[in-house]
């Protein structure tokens, strides 16, 4: 998938910032944020539930610079972003998957141009089990056989019990209890595309309205398994290692593997913006995006449990809306664009 490969490219573009095993740090090439005068108004974000905490952190950080700006974050699922952007009720549409061609069509029908897509941060979609569960790792084909009805991943047999995954003792004969997201969620769509190879979910997957309720469900169900963004991990659950196929190594959901592109379910988290090509963004949205792609903005990403993008990706994202990374001059960061 494109998303995985993009992550690989991110690794290549890194300027020695992140090496294996090291704690993730924000790219030094990103500038700090300097407030500019003349910014006011209200920001409303409608979209991804995975990005709820992240949007809230950005909102808080932005409000520190501009106390008069009102910020409202609504996160019911990525699929709620395109309708809100089209209806004009949202300033930003955070999405944990790429927009579908049909959604872009609907947007283009309303405005004549496609929405601008900005990769803001990197998430690892984790497969969680209960903390007592001895399971170490799964291949994507096994994940598919656990969750999918029509098993496009290629395994011949359905996987219904923990024993079929090689667990012994009391686990062996216990049926696997499945937790997942509701269909509005980008996580639902991404997981379906990548982990289920485009197949269908079993109708026994219990659909939860939010990322945290999936984790909560697995935490309270000893024989449960579920998927959610890495930012929602708690001590009650464990993220299992994943392998692309039987021949590949098991990769734990650790940050270094997100950047290397080895982790099979690493993805970008996007902000979608209604930006007429060639026009100039209004100061409010311009400053918010500049903040998101600044050093403090990307530190918020770490706080939310996700991983920051590099200056290269940030520069590309800003160019998509006619902005650029503000030059950092030692000691005197400049405002303006």
């Amino acid at each position, binding site marked *: 998938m494109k998303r995985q490969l993009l992550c690989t490219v991110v690794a290549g573009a890194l300027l020695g910032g992140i090496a294996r095993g090291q704690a993730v740090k924000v790219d030094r090439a990103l500038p700090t944020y300097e407030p500019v005068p003349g910014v006011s108004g209200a920001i409303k974000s409608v979209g991804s539930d995975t990005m709820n905490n992240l949007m809230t952190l950005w909102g808080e950080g932005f409000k520190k610079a501009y106390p008069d700006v009102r910020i409202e974050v609504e996160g019911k699922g990525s699929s709620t972003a395109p309708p809100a952007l089209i*209806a004009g009720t949202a300033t930003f549409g955070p999405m944990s998957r790429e927009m579908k061609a049909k959604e872009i069509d609907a947007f283009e029908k309303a405005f004549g141009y496609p929405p601008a897509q900005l990769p803001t941060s990197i998430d690892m979609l984790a497969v969680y089990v209960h903390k007592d569960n001895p399971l170490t790792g799964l291949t994507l084909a096994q994940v598919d056989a656990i969750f999918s009805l029509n098993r496009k991943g290629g395994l011949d047999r359905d996987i219904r019990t923990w024993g079929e995954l090689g667990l012994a003792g009391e686990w062996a004969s216990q049926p696997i209890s499945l937790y997942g997201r509701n269909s509005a969620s980008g996580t639902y769509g991404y997981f379906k595309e990548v982990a289920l190879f485009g197949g269908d979910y079993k109708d026994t997957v219990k*659909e939860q*309205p939010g990322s945290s309720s999936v984790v909560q469900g697995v935490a309270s169900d000893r024989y449960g398994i579920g998927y959610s963004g890495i930012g929602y991990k708690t001590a009650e659950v464990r993220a299992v290692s994943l392998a692309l196929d039987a021949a590949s190594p098991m990769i734990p959901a650790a940050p270094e593997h997100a950047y290397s592109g080895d982790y099979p379910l690493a993805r970008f988290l996007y902000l979608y913006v209604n930006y007429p090509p060639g026009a100039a963004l209004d100061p409010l949205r311009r400053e918010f995006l500049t903040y998101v792609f600044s050093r403090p903005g990307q530190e918020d990403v770490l706080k939310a449990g996700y991983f920051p993008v590099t200056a290269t990706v940030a520069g590309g994202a800003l160019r998509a809306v006619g902005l650029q990374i503000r030059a950092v001059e030692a000691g005197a960061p400049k405002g303006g664009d």
Partner: protein
Amino acid sequence: MRRQRTTHARVRVFETLARFLITAGGIATIGAVALIFAFLLWVVAPLFRRAAIVPETSAEEPLVRSPGDALRFQVDDHGVLGAVLFSDGTLLALDVTNGAVLEELHPFGTEAGEQPALYSFSGDGAKSVLVAGFADGTVRVGAIAFAASFPPAGELPAAIRALSPGEHAAEDGGVVQALPDGRFRRLRVQAELGAAIVPEEPAPILRLGHSRRGDRTIACAWRADGRATLLDVRERPDMLGGRPALRVMRRELPRRADPRLGPPAHVVVTAAGDSVYLVWEDGRLERLDVRDPARAVLAEILDVTPAEGVRPTAVASLAGGATMIVGDSAGGVTAWFASKEPEAGTSDGSVLVAGHVLAAAGPAVTCLAPSPRSRLLATGHADGSVRLYHVTTARLLGETRMAAGGAGPLQIQLAAREDAIVALGPTGVARWAVDPGHPEASLAGLFAPVWYEGYAGPRHVWQSEGGSDSFEPKLGFVPLVYGTGKATLYAILFGAPLALLAAVYTSEFLDRRWRAPVKSVLEMMASLPSVVLGFLAALVIAPFVQSVVPAALAVIGAIPLSLLAGAHLWQLLPAPVAIRAGGYPKLAAMALALPLGILGGVVLGPALEAAVFAGDATMWLDGQRGGPLGAWTMLLFPLVAGAVCVAGGRLAGPWLRQRSPDWSGGKCARVALLRFALQGGASLLLALGLAALLAAASFDPRPGIVGTYVQRNALVVGFVMGFAVIPIVYTLAEDALSSVPDHLRLASLAAGATPWQTAIRVVIPTAASGLFTAVMIGVGRAVGETMIVLMATGNTPIMELNPFNGFRTLSANIAVELPEAVQNSTHYRVLFLAALVLFAITFVLNTAAELVRSRFRRRASRL
């Protein structure tokens, strides 16, 4: 003082005003409900509108080259700019509305003639990917794209600036469209080709098929030497703007046994890259299982044409790359996909099936154009007709014809937005404006089982959205209606008896002073927000019940038994003691029976688990161990016990009544206890016998009546929803019972009946229709309940009776999916249809209840 006989003017004014206000309020309420209904209808109605195909333009401009050499025809998303690729490698950009050639490109070389002859290619609409094979055996992966840009109006010539919105004109090798907001969009044909993939064997490539997923292309190339190669090409995009780097994996497919067959006519690769379909001119299809490209095997051989002599004339892959459409010379159009069938004995446990027959016979098919975004398919036929099908529901949506009589279209395209069909005929181009409507939402598609791609057979499925456009929406309504019914059933099963009995108790037996406070407290329960109940159910009750399944099941049986046993034991008390203790002590004793029942259940739980569930309830329910004998006994016991009670009353009742007048109270009580014990034992034996019969006939309640235990299940939800239903049923039932006139009660008591006999024989029959209404309104409440179901079930659209798994109701489904549904999309309208169905159910229930209630009121007032 003289009494004033006329009404005061002020009173009259207020009375008129009040009457007017009340009338207006009533009419407004009815109007509001009618408006909601009308609005729902207004949103839902377009679902069943027919598709429209309107001829727009038809150009008889002959192309510079013989159109018969056209390998590939493609139109941009807006259906304005077309690109035709010819077999000599020339690519023409043309305006499909007038057939004017705008630009000539040579993507494979600088000039026509200098390049290697283009032997074969394949393309798919979605990403306009094209894989080209050449005479020297090289293969190149590329794309024909339509690049859009938005030039400032100032840079454009005056003639274009004068265009009104929606119009377009040729400019600089492409077209420029005027947009509604006053800006302009420039479209140009762009051909991009990746690096040449040099072969190991320099044999010319005769046939190619490919599929594309993300940036991975899997192509199968059939060479002139009768061998085939599988190429797995991954692109690694370069963020600095360079040409993408290719990573190629190449596998030779096994040599075919029969070389006399010659090259296949069509090669199709599935999107998952797990199968290659080779289709020969005579309809023979060979499916290769290439899940492991190093060990490709021939999975099966079949014939995709209906009869001898019928040739497949057009083959295309539907969006998503899992379904292959075959059009044949007899006019048949069939959708084929792999279906899991482990018993079939193929290498991958699947067989290729003709899931949908869109057309069985008719004019020969000349070309196929699947939509890149959905399951729509446009077909061109030899008699010049052009048809639009929806594949999932196998429906013909519309038909039209090429203007020039007779000749069939050579190439056809459905614009990506599904708003235009463009056909390239022998003499020119034609364009139709299309409005497919909402093809997924036919009545059959919503309510009948549908055979979805990759499934083992037709099924009712609800799975409305996927992560990409290739997803086949599954809009089966039946699981949702079933879930609504299941939720209601369990809620009423739990809530209605409790509420009705509580109402009988408070109105007939409870001290009058306590009646009002008890009623208020019960009504207070209704003010408990259902979201709180749902939260409790999901986070506290469901995990708790899961940890004590056998005990919970035992408790359900033990509480009624403990109450019945308690009542019989109370009878044993000497009459003076019983009368003296009739007040609070009796109430306390009753209250004690409840915890005793629970305790009994908890104590009996492990024994029950050992006896009925072979030692482990969850594993037994999952069908992994144990036989059905114990479970049948448990399931049949309540039914048998009821029957035994009735039979016992009929048979032994008169005999006992004849003798009992001579007996002392104590003896009566002892006989009653004995009878209770005997009936209980008899019921148990009878249930065991019946269960043994059923077990001997190898009927097993698993899976079916019961099945795998899931934490969020109907039992838990029924229990919690029962709480939501109890207040409303209780209030209405209590009202009905207390409106039974007191003179009936007094007459009954005066005639010597006990309060119990009065309640059962006089009051309840009189109030029966009122009680029925109460239950009906309770059902209406349960049908519409959303939050509890949403939070406490997994919202799993399953159709099973099993009380130990979840369900998805209409109302919860609307709450979950409406925020994501694009306004006026099929999904959006289908959700409104769900709302309409829900509205209809509650409307019918409440109206029926109200009719019964008003009849009851009239009857009660006459008593």
